[in-house]
């Protein structure tokens, strides 16, 4: 078979998908994020997206902080630069690893559950039923999830930052034998406000990506259990890729001198 036909078809399919996502995004923003606002739904989603993701995100941050401290120590001891451990852990966690890893973990946990839930609602006609009860599904389902994700992800990442640095501190003081007081002072001296805020801005963007992709794939799932399964996979894969791409773009943007 002609290879150009394959490439052409794949390109067209990709462009069509981008177009569909853009149209969905338009509805999500214009209908989902304008009054009327469903406060009860927002609070419920904040619990589900934020609060219940705490253990996963906390553990991820803790072990990553610890591993980072160990790696930097092993690398920097060659140059007798062990004092760098604290500062690089702090920078690495707040600027990159905190938001990216939290984003990816939440994409796996929450993106999948949003897609599965809305996908099931779609194939069992619950979304149609919402419409017939004069309730706009973009306002009732999509809006609250986007708001909850955009608000809670930065909070999650803030907590992940603290836990990640703590992980580094514990490994640094317990297993590497750095001075605890010096570790904390190095961290505090070196870390700047912008390091933290840049990570939190990233987190908000990632939250948006996760909620939108979860809702998009859930809303457009068809064909029973298999379709919902496919929607779930697509939601996780697409949000993970978009998170990594957005992270690169945001890093270039936020840290452009």
């Amino acid at each position: 078979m002609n290879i150009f036909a394959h490439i052409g078809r794949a390109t067209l399919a990709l462009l069509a998908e981008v177009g569909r996502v853009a149209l969905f995004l338009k509805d999500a923003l214009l209908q989902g994020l304008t009054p009327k606002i469903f406060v009860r739904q927002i609070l419920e989603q904040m619990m589900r997206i934020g609060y219940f993701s705490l253990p996963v995100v906390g553990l991820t941050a803790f072990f990553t902080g610890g591993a980072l401290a160990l790696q930097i120590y092993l690398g920097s001891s060659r140059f007798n630069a062990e004092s760098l451990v604290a500062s690089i852990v702090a920078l690495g966690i707040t600027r990159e690893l905190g938001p990216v890893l939290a984003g990816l973990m939440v994409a796996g946990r929450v993106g999948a559950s949003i897609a599965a839930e809305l996908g099931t609602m779609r194939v069992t006609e619950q979304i149609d039923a919402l419409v017939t009860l004069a309730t706009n599904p973009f306002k009732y389902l999509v809006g609250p999830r986007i708001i909850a994700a955009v608000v809670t992800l930065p909070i999650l990442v803030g907590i992940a930052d603290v836990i990640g640095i703590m992980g580094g501190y514990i490994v640094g003081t317990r297993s590497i034998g750095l001075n605890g007081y010096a570790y904390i002072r190095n961290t505090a001296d070196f870390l700047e406000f912008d390091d933290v805020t840049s990570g939190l801005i990233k987190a908000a963007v990632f939250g948006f990506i996760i909620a939108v992709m979860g809702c998009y794939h859930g809303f457009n799932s068809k064909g029973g259990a298999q379709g919902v399964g496919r929607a779930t996979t697509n939601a996780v894969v697409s949000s993970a890729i978009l998170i990594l791409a957005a992270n690169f773009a945001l890093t270039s943007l936020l840290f452009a001198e």
Partner: protein
Amino acid sequence: MAEGYIELSNVKKSFGPKHVLNGVTLSVPKGHSLVVIGGSGTGKSVMLKCVLGLLQPDSGSIRIAGEEVVGLKGKARDAYLSRFGMLFQGAALFDSLAVWENVAFGLIQGRHMARAKARDIAFEKLGQVGLTPEVGNLYPAELSGGMQKRVGLARAIAADPEIIFFDEPTTGLDPIMADVINNLIVDCVKRLGATTVSITHDMASARKIADDIAMIFKGEIIWQGPARTIDQSGNPYVDQFIHGRAEGPIQMDVLKP
């Protein structure tokens, strides 16, 4: 025929190459109960969804009280839909909400009624469909199929809508409960003055609730007339259907052994 309250003319709908509705023309006078009969997969549910705007017809016009409703958007659409009640074929209950919240949903979200008051009405409607108050606090997944159907029915009539669509209201119910539901539908029409369109395969139910009967075949209405004339329709398709004969002009596409 005089202009009906619900008026479909030449409504067409295809899914890709599959033509489901091939020009449906139908008229229901105000306060009448129309029953639509027809084989499985002939487009009955699709027709109702077109009227509700859940599916966009490819062409044709749908008028409610003389007003064109195809392509309604935003507030106008919400206002339009708040005049409807719909019982879905698969009940389509919200599985994240308790049974009474399902029934009260349209009242609370659509009509901004206080929760306590909506709750009382919900329990009253549940009583009308033969469900005890204990059922109100269960979740849809804990109910039998027939009970779910009755909850769907209670939800459809909860807001006392002007127009109610019942998609197979008695399928899956025992004969006695089916008759209770038939009476309830008749009562809705009489007491509320509602205009109803019901889909059913159950001729006993059709005879009981219908003022008029229409038969759909291959996406077209092939016969419509007063319910009492159905036995003298002179239409071989109708005769075959109401007597449930395998032999006749309607050929089922099944492989003969």
